[in-house]
């Protein structure tokens, strides 16, 4: 089993699954970490609260530790094996996008700020986005319509009228393919990209090729920013107030070190160490501050590009045989541009379609035509 089931659905309402990064009252939320084994939240995340009004929440889908892994394959498996309309989960580092591209699912990573982050286990707050994976664009759009909206409990939540506007349909007529990102793909991934381009053309879209410019720097910039944020976010897990505590400790320092060391996996430890490295006095300016400036340049690159096109096609990964043990950093080249800018992305026909802010509805309408 790759998912946990809270209850059997009665099917009086459509069923849905959440991933294990979303807090649900009185049921376990572990973020895939031994640190939070047995942890039960006192409250529901806003998205869980909203979804429970319209859907039966079937249960939780397993995630890699703090969603830092390569894939979100449990979500795709749950969609295949359970009668659920969608899986709602945290896109922290592109795992959902890579999985959707490889499994033929649709995944929407909405514009940052249109879906509340209240009640998520935080990874990298400035990029964390709750997204929807489904078998088709209609289902993804329906569920996004339920979870999108302003939330007073989230300081980064956009005003209600702005959130609502993101769902408006629009047209995608001109698409940019970024040359630097379509080179060096495996043959299978190249074929996926070519097929997606042909499908877009068949819908009457004009395709232009553009240079990536600063876009390739998003990978390291996002690794720096997300690790820095992650390192701070997981400093709360110290074995004192909740979560795992190592047995037989004789001092509070021993509780901290042993509780964290006995529970966190190597990917989490690497991210923590790197995050504190980039924030250190010696590196702050040349790494963290530099990454914040590169983020603005990447945003400016997209702003300029979206004056000429309606969408940008990027592969979601370099190859189709990704393994869970590979270095996510290398593959994040393809997902970091949208993570660092908060732009909406719909994965459909095996590739990412990025839009300007609030173009979520337009991207979903377009991706439906590609099915």
């Amino acid at each position, binding site marked *: 089993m790759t998912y946990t089931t809270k209850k059997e659905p009665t099917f009086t309402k459509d069923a849905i699954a959440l991933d294990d990064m979303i807090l649900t009252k009185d049921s376990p939320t572990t973020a895939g970490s031994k640190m939070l084994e047995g942890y039960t939240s006192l409250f529901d995340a806003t998205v869980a609260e909203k979804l429970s009004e319209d859907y039966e929440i079937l249960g939780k889908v397993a995630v890699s530790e703090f969603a830092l892994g390569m894939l979100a394959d449990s979500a795709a498996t749950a969609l295949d094996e359970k009668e659920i309309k969608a899986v709602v989960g945290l896109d922290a580092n592109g795992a959902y996008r890579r999985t959707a591209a490889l499994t033929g699912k649709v995944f929407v990573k909405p514009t940052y700020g249109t879906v509340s982050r209240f009640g998520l286990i935080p990874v990298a707050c400035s990029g964390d986005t709750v997204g929807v994976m489904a078998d088709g664009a209609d289902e993804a759009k329906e569920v996004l319509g339920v979870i999108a909206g302003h939330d007073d409990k989230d300081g980064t939540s956009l005003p209600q009228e702005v959130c609502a506007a993101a769902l408006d349909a629009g047209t995608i007529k001109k698409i940019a393919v970024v040359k630097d990102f379509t080179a060096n793909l495996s043959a299978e991934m190249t074929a996926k990209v070519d097929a997606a381009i042909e499908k877009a053309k068949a819908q009457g879209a004009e395709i232009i090729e553009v240079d990536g410019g600063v876009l390739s720097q998003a990978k390291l*910039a996002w690794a720096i920013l997300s690790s820095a944020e992650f390192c701070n976010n997981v400093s709360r897990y110290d074995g004192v107030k909740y979560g795992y505590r190592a047995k037989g400790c004789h001092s509070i320092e021993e509780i901290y*070190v042993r509780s964290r060391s006995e529970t966190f996996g190597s990917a989490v430890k690497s991210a923590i160490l790197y995050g504190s490295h980039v924030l250190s006095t010696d590196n702050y300016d040349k790494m963290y501050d530099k990454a914040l400036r590169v983020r603005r340049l990447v945003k400016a690159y997209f702003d300029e590009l979206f004056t000429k096109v309606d969408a940008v096609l990027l592969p979601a990964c370099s190859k189709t045989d990704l393994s869970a043990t590979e270095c996510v950093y290398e593959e994040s080249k393809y997902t970091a541009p949208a993570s660092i800018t908060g732009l909406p992305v719909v994965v459909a026909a095996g590739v990412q379609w990025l839009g300007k802010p609030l173009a979520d509805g337009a991207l979903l309408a377009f991706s439906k035509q590609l099915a």
Partner: protein
Amino acid sequence: MEDLLDMLEKVNQLSLTDEEKAVAAGYFAATEKDFATFSAVDTDGVEPMVHVMPLENVLREDVSSQPFTREDLQKGAPEAEDGYWEVPRLIE
């Protein structure tokens, strides 16, 4: 690299096995190979961008609330006694 990882372990209240250190070293090395081109990006005059969307300061009515009791908050405590979180003695 080993000294750097040792120092970072300490400041992060962590202890890594040799295998975990090798994974961390691999991660640092992967990022390091992209660092030269990253550093060469001209960011003179470019303002740091902390938030991707325009944000305004968020205020709410100054009304106190206490949604959770002490008992609620200690439900998940590894060790608690008489309403306090329990840890080993700090001062001998």
